[in-house]
């Protein structure tokens, strides 16, 4: 049996940073240089006046590694705060995927039917293809994509996870 301290867990971290050149390279360099995993990473400016961006990173590791990742991120000079949402409490995670499916006849009808169940929208359509837009958590997107494989899936583009704490909780600003 693997001891608890050796178990790999997936964590979602929300990182508030100065929106300045090199800040993303600094974060990515930290992960590659220290051998940490990145499962997904999203970044965008969220406050034009304060010039702040939020980076959401999904990573995995043992509890000791996860603690290190948070501490190492907090050590970077242009980082205002790091929230480990997985530890801190309930939060919402969303991801968007664009899924291209080629097919005619029965398969095409089946693809539309499943898309409907998943509340995916067709955002582009030709006689023999669809592009579906689907929003949800990572698990939902994975399930949809899996179902599309036998129906002619040929291309997927995903945004990675954006996340935010539930309720009245405000994530760290400093």
């Amino acid at each position, binding site marked *: 049996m693997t001891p608890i301290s050796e178990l790999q867990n997936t964590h979602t971290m929300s990182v508030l940073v*100065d929106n300045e*050149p*090199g800040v993303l*390279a*600094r974060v990515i*360099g930290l992960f590659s*240089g220290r051998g940490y995993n990145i499962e997904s990473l999203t970044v965008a400016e969220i406050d034009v006046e304060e010039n702040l961006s939020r980076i959401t990173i999904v990573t995995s590791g043992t509890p*000791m590694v996860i*603690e*290190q990742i948070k*501490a*190492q991120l*907090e*050590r*970077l*000079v*242009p*980082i*205002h705060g790091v929230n480990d949402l997985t530890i801190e409490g309930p939060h919402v995670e969303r991801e968007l995927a664009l899924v291209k499916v080629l097919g005619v006849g029965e398969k095409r009808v089946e693809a539309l039917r499943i898309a409907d169940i998943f509340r995916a929208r067709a955002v582009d359509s030709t006689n023999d293809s669809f592009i579906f837009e689907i929003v949800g958590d990572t698990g939902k997107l994975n399930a949809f994509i899996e179902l599309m494989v036998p129906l002619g899936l040929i291309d997927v583009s995903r945004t990675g996870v954006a996340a935010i704490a539930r309720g009245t909780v405000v994530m760290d600003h*400093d």
Partner: protein
Amino acid sequence: MSKNQMSGAQILLKALADQGVDVVFGYPGGAVLPIYDEFFKQNKIRHILVRQEGGAVHAAEGYARSTGKVGVVLVTSGPGATNAVTGLLDAMMDSVPLVCICGQVPTHLIGNDAFQEADTTGITRPCTKHNYLVKNVDNLARRIHEAFYVAKSGRPGPVVIDFPKDVMMGHADYVPPAKVVHKSYKPQIKGDLAKIEQAVKIMAGAKKPLIYAGGGVINSGPGASQLLTQLVQATDFPCTLTLMGLGALAASDKHFLGMLGMHGTYEANMAMHDCDVMVCVGARFDDRVTGRLDAFSPDSVKIHIDIDPSSINKNVHVDLGIVGDVGHVLEDMIKLWKSGQKRADEKAMKSWWKTINKWRERKSLDYDRAAKNIKPQYAIERLYELTKKQNEVYITTEVGQHQMWAAQHFHFERPNRWMTSGGLGTMGYGLPAAMGVQLAHPKALVIDIAGEASILMNIQEMSTLVQYNLPVKVFILNNEYMGMVRQWQELLHGGRYAESHMQALPDFVKLAEAFGGVGLRAEKKEQLDDVIGEMIECDRPVIADICVDKLESCYPMIPSGAAHNEMIFGPEDETDDPVTEDGMVLV
């Protein structure tokens, strides 16, 4: 353009002066000419012209570590910046506050593979605490002040400012340091009082306690070393120091067990292994210190004080982590200890000290004193004895056996007197570092304890010493080998000394003279004291070539992959494979 506006180069010089900088180590080039022109027009800040940029960074490190101030480096773009990289990482690993200003090609040429262009911020990102590319002269003064703040606050480190030539020549208003407040970087200085209280409680319940202190105490300032001494004396706890921490507690203090780790003393390592409460003060559980991790101090409750939260629980899981400046935390700790009239169990402490004194009797640093040739340990011992009476003695080292012998046999009573490359282990560190120390302390006796291999890595700085009349003393323990490599080849690779013997070496006496310094040599034991005496008396740069036993190894030693209680003391212990396969993988 308003009348008060200054050029970027002028802003730099003004900002440096406002930051209290009195000396800059540098080397000119095309991309920094406007800055050098400003240097020419002023006399507030001294510029020291090194012979290679690597030397400039180590010199600034020596300056910073012996004064507690920020060291400043100025280099040109491209190769100037890349030559500085090793020194920057060295400063990063050993937490030395530096600001390194690199020239850069003009902003419109960045990314075009221009002459002497390098992606300096890209290259230095993982080896600095922070770096800036200043593209707009309006931000320049602010960035420079921020750089100094970042370099010296929290856990100190090197900061690079990449400075394009057109920005040097652009004009803007100057912003004084007082107006610059950092938006995001605010390290925690005071420790959590509840945790400190908890620590004091654990310490009072200890039966076999140990304080393990490191470079963080030195970085916190001389006051922290005094507080450490007070804590040690108030608690009567034994104390060991890391390589970087030497001097934080006086070597003559009866509580001092010597340095710990791979070449630490038997008593320090055994106490680490057997203690029941370990108080780590500003050290980072480096692999040279811990030895085999799964056998590291198995039965102790561990308390760790560090200003860098990422140091806590990085290599070793601790029971109580206190984030804060060690000076502040020690102050609170001592207050709580004294006000609570705390005291560890007297009977247990008596028996613990008895055990420690028994370990001390093993005299793990002993060597063959009767030898006819000069043993390197003897050379250091004599150097210590003959310089003891000098007012101010500062020691720097290169990297290798001589470094460990210096750490073992030279004794430091005060902080900031010992400059060595601990984390990165940079050969060539000692000579330029000594240069920086001598500049900061013109009247002091500054000695670089060196090996004949390391010294050749930055020997060009002898020329700088002569130019500025800096009487640094280079004390070479010359055994014609890269001694530490040779020792490991003896221990791990069946004595196959692949490429560790220097089959051709310069005549160091003539070399010193060629540079315009003084060369001395001791080949026999009876010459040693005279050579050291002559070296100390000389008011010029000296190279003293001490021809020591060629095959002496550095003991005691924890072989790689072994635990603290598995030390070897000499060649007699090496016989039955002291190193495992797993250990061989480790460095």
